[in-house]
């Protein structure tokens, strides 16, 4: 067992969990920062696949991502390590400090803190969205990217169709041999 690697896995997911205010989704850009930018365990492409499949399965998103990435990088121990680092600290706080927390729950200071984090999380999510859109344009070209984006937006936001379903349909289309031009590295140059 590589202790240094396990330490990195723990720290990466600990940070992502402890700084994600506003539920699991707010940790997504933080996991991206740790996994892709800081430790370089994955490329942007792989990360977006993990995110896509995570979104099309039920259950909490961040433990699915953490567990899978931990497993890829550090085996079964890495999986347990990443999941526990994401989940346990706040569970401990919850169990141990519930009395104190319920006293401060209505305090304006706590409220102000959680409120001020929301726009920061928004900016992180937005820049991640932007970098994926840019990558998609690179792989699929403008026309396909824009068409897919507009349809996804309509289905997801205005017709309330679950994203898992949209992703499932797209995956199935590809699986059954649907034709779309995906540019290779060479063609991009």
């Amino acid at each position, binding site marked *: 067992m590589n202790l240094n690697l396990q330490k990195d896995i723990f720290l990466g997911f600990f940070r992502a969990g*402890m*700084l994600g205010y506003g539920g699991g989704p707010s940790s997504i850009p933080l996991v991206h920062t740790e996994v892709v930018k800081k430790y370089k365990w994955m490329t942007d492409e792989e990360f977006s696949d993990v995110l896509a499949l995570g979104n099309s399965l039920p*259950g*909490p998103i961040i*433990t699915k991502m953490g567990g899978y990435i931990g497993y890829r990088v550090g085996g079964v121990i890495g999986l347990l390590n990443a999941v526990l680092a994401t989940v346990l600290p706040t569970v401990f706080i919850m169990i141990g400090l519930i009395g104190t927390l319920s006293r401060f729950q209505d305090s304006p200071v706590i409220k102000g803190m959680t*409120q001020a984090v929301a726009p920061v999380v928004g900016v992180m999510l937005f*820049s991640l969205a932007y970098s994926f859109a840019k990558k998609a344009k690179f792989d*699929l070209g403008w026309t396909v990217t824009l068409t897919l*984006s507009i349809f996804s937006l309509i289905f997801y936001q205005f017709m309330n169709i679950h994203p898992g379903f949209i992703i499932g349909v797209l995956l199935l289309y*590809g699986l059954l041999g649907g034709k779309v031009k995906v540019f290779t590295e060479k063609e991009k140059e």
Partner: protein
Amino acid sequence: MIIYWQIFLAFFIPAIVGYGGGPAFIPLIRNEVVNTYGWITLEKFAELLAIANSLPGPIATKIGGYIGYQMGGVMGVVVALFALIAPSLLAMLFLLGLLNKFKDSPRVKVMTGLIRPTIAILLGVLAYEFFFRSWVSIGSFHTALLILLSFLLLERWKIHPVYVIVGSLFYGAFLIA
């Protein structure tokens, strides 16, 4: 023994029927622990949720861990967290394993290429929801200022998110409260 089985079921069912991440299946968990098993009153659950929301990290596991502990001690925590996390994580490992095995096939390239715009939209909508929530709760001035500052810090000056988030917590504690 029966209590562990009940804890397992109470969190397993919401976790496999609940789509859309933790926040989406809180009502399902509430239904199990308040209505089905009567472990906790509705008021107490609402209080629990409010406290969980003021802490970082995934919501469902905080609720699950706490109720698991109340009903079954340390073992109850283990059972509740396992029920919440393991089923979908195993499915995830299986599906991504398949995808990786065939990652050089042209079909898989098309598959993973096609979902990327959808993921971008999904994240964009999430970003919008955070902005919107903030605009409703702290108004346009604080929201715009925080967006501008965090954008400059994160994207222009490449400061690690840890510092930016901690900075925003201080901003909230002193300038909003």
